[in-house]
């Protein structure tokens, strides 16, 4: 099919952009650059990809076309053939349909955001490459190609977190992100290789694999599922591999918006959904995933209530929302999770871009305690962010309501009430910290803060995305509200469904909404006008404001012992023992030989005596032998 070629172009355009940009960047001096050309090159690739993605998604949605494109044979092994092949079904097209468009919006936003940065070209090279890898991840027709993209986005994330390389702490954050992601990759890689070893002979594309999962022993199936989820943990910042995400906010804000909120971090959710047929076979692992998701969500929400860095609050909130997605996936409903991914990308991107605009306006100030009363100075931004905040708090009719409520309903109906209650409590916390965020920034004390004007180019993308935040929820309107869950139908994954009466459904919505409103009210009470600093005295709040000391614990548990061990290996084991042993063998030999020179003392009588001794020994020998 001709349209299948388009898959290739989705990958190709951003890559081409990146290549042209890097060549130009290397060989044209800054002063001679044409700004328009650079701007065009920066956004062209992703825009083309966005158009193509939407077109293909439309094709699929309407005509149910699946697309496949085999570029070349990557590896041809004895028992395994890995093609560099792309595949687009409903799932991947769904992903593409927000990755590229949201990406385009953020790219435009970034044009404005990075205007004054001297290495903006480098930024867009990375950004375009990121889009390339993200598309590769989504389009990969087999786990291996997916892993290529998976690794690629990790590297781009590393480079972008460390974008401001003058400061070592940024680089440290980047390294941390890369290393923790690699730990996740360890799991992912082991998982897909176990799959390759067990059933790779029959074909390694996702379709071929899904037909032979049954051949794997249950033990290994569980193992593979857990390993794959470890990969997801790393990429999607779940306990215990989440610590990189808050630090990753060291990168420029568009990066946080695109990579650490909208797209890359959801790759884990996408991957689990991609293997939904596998995960649907291992329910215990699913429950485990759900619990990990639940605790991650709770933990992140708790920490977020005591965080003051504007971007870190959003980072924790991202982690918390990802937790929701894993709860849904763990308990078997993949399309709800993906729907939440979908809506989340819009409202979280809005929030991040808004935060970025505020940061720029306040001359790179990130502490929300030093903000306040911005509502009048940036009204447009306020409303946009308010929409997003309401959406994330799941207030009807914003998109977050539809996606989150579907998940809550599923959690309740699946019978795992503990998870449900955690989710409910987290939902409460979410509303609380989001409105704490809003109140702190836009209301609170009346200090007069100097504000730089925000450029139009920045506001328009935010506006567009906040608009979508309002409407995309209706794509998956539940039956209760007269919809037919078109989104879930389109994806047609291995969803588990529980039938619940409308009464239960309504009461759940009510309970949830009541909690949320209560949270907003509490936040209002506490932060709307209050100027006083929050007391840090209680143990709990200390614990929270230090993020449960997890960084410190990790440091003491892993980093320091590793360094100590390395020191030990180097000094004690290597130099102190092995090398010393070898050297002392050599030097000892020389020492002995020096001792041996005693026999060469120049005395004739000694020499004669030795010779005589030799003859005598020979004689004794012969006597012994002969007699």
């Amino acid at each position: 099919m001709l349209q299948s070629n388009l898959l290739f172009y989705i990958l190709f355009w951003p890559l081409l952009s990146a290549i042209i940009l890097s060549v130009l960047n290397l060989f044209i001096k800054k002063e001679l650059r044409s700004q328009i050309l650079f701007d065009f090159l920066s956004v062209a690739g992703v825009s083309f990809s966005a158009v193509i993605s939407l077109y293909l998604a439309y094709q699929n949605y309407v005509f149910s076309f699946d697309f496949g494109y085999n570029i070349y044979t990557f590896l041809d092994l004895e028992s395994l053939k890995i093609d560099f092949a792309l595949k687009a079904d409903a799932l991947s097209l769904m992903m593409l349909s927000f990755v590229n468009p949201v990406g385009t919006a953020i790219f435009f936003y970034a044009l404005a955001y990075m205007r004054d940065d001297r290495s903006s070209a480098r930024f867009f090279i990375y950004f375009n490459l990121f889009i390339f890898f993200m598309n590769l991840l989504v389009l990969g027709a087999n786990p291996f190609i997916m892993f290529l993209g998976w690794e690629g986005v990790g590297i781009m994330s590393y480079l972008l977190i460390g974008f401001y390389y003058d400061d070592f702490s940024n680089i440290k954050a980047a390294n941390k992100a890369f290393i923790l992601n690699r730990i996740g990759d360890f799991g992912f890689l082991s998982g897909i290789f176990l799959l390759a070893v067990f059933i790779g002979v029959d074909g390694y594309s996702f379709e071929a694999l899904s037909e032979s999962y049954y051949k794997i022993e249950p033990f290994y199936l569980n193992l593979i599922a857990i390993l794959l989820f470890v990969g997801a943990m790393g990429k999607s910042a779940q306990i215990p591999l989440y610590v990189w995400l808050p630090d990753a906010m060291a990168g420029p804000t568009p990066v946080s918006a695109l990579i650490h909120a909208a797209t890359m971090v959801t790759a884990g959710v996408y991957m689990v959904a991609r293997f939904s047929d596998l995960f649907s076979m291992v329910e215990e692992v699913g429950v485990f995933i759900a619990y990990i998701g639940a605790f991650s969500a709770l933990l992140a929400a708790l920490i977020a209530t005591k965080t003051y860095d504007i971007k870190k609050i959003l980072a924790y909130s991202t982690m918390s929302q990802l937790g929701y997605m894993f709860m849904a996936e763990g308990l078997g409903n993949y399309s709800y999770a993906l729907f939440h991914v979908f809506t989340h990308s819009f409202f979280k991107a809005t929030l991040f871009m808004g935060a970025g605009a505020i940061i720029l306006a306040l001359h790179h100030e990130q502490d929300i305690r030093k903000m306040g009363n911005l509502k009048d100075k940036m009204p447009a931004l306020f409303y946009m962010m308010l929409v997003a905040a309401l959406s994330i708090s799941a207030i009807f009719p914003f998109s977050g309501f539809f996606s989150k409520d579907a998940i809550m309903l599923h959690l309740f109906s699946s019978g795992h009430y503990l998870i449900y209650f955690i989710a409910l409590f987290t939902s409460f916390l979410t509303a609380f910290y989001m409105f704490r965020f809003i109140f702190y920034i836009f209301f609170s004390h009346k200090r007069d803060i100097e504000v730089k004007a925000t450029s139009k180019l920045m506001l328009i993308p935010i506006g567009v995305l906040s608009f979508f935040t309002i409407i995309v929820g209706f794509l998956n309107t539940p039956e209760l509200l007269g919809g037919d869950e078109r989104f879930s139908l389109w994806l047609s994954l291995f969803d588990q469904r529980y039938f619940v009466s409308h009464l239960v459904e309504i009461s759940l919505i009510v309970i949830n909404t009541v909690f949320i409103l209560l949270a907003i009210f509490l936040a209002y009470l506490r932060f709307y006008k209050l100027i006083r600093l929050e007391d840090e005295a209680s143990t709990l709040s200390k614990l929270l404001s230090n993020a449960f000391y997890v960084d410190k614990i990790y440091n003491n548990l892993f980093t320091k012992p590793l360094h100590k061990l390395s020191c030990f290996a180097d000094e004690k084991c290597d130099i102190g023992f092995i090398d010393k042993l070898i050297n002392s063998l050599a030097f000892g030999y020389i020492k002995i030989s020096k001792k041996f020179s005693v026999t060469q003392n120049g005395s004739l009588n000694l020499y004669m005596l030795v010779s005589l001794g030799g003859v005598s020994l020979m004689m004794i020998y012969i006597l012994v032998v002969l007699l």
Partner: protein
Amino acid sequence: MFKNYLILSILLFSLGLIGAVSRRNIIIIYMSIELMLNAVSIMLVSYSSFYNTNTGVVLSIMVTAIAAAEAALFMALFVTLYRKKKSLDTSLFNSLKDTNATK
């Protein structure tokens, strides 16, 4: 009877050995070595006379000739060494010892 001569010459040879190894004067060492050679000569000559061949005698003449040649060299040696150190004590001549050998 030949056995007795054998024993005699072995005794002589051993005497020479002991002398050569234990004495420090070079002349005495030389004489001890000559003693060893002579012991061999006695053995050869007595063998000849007991077993009625003259090969042994011929050999003993050879031995004597060699001893004579050695004597010439030894004489030269005595002179050379005496000129160096005004003494013929072997323990004085150890300048070639290994540098690492302390004693």
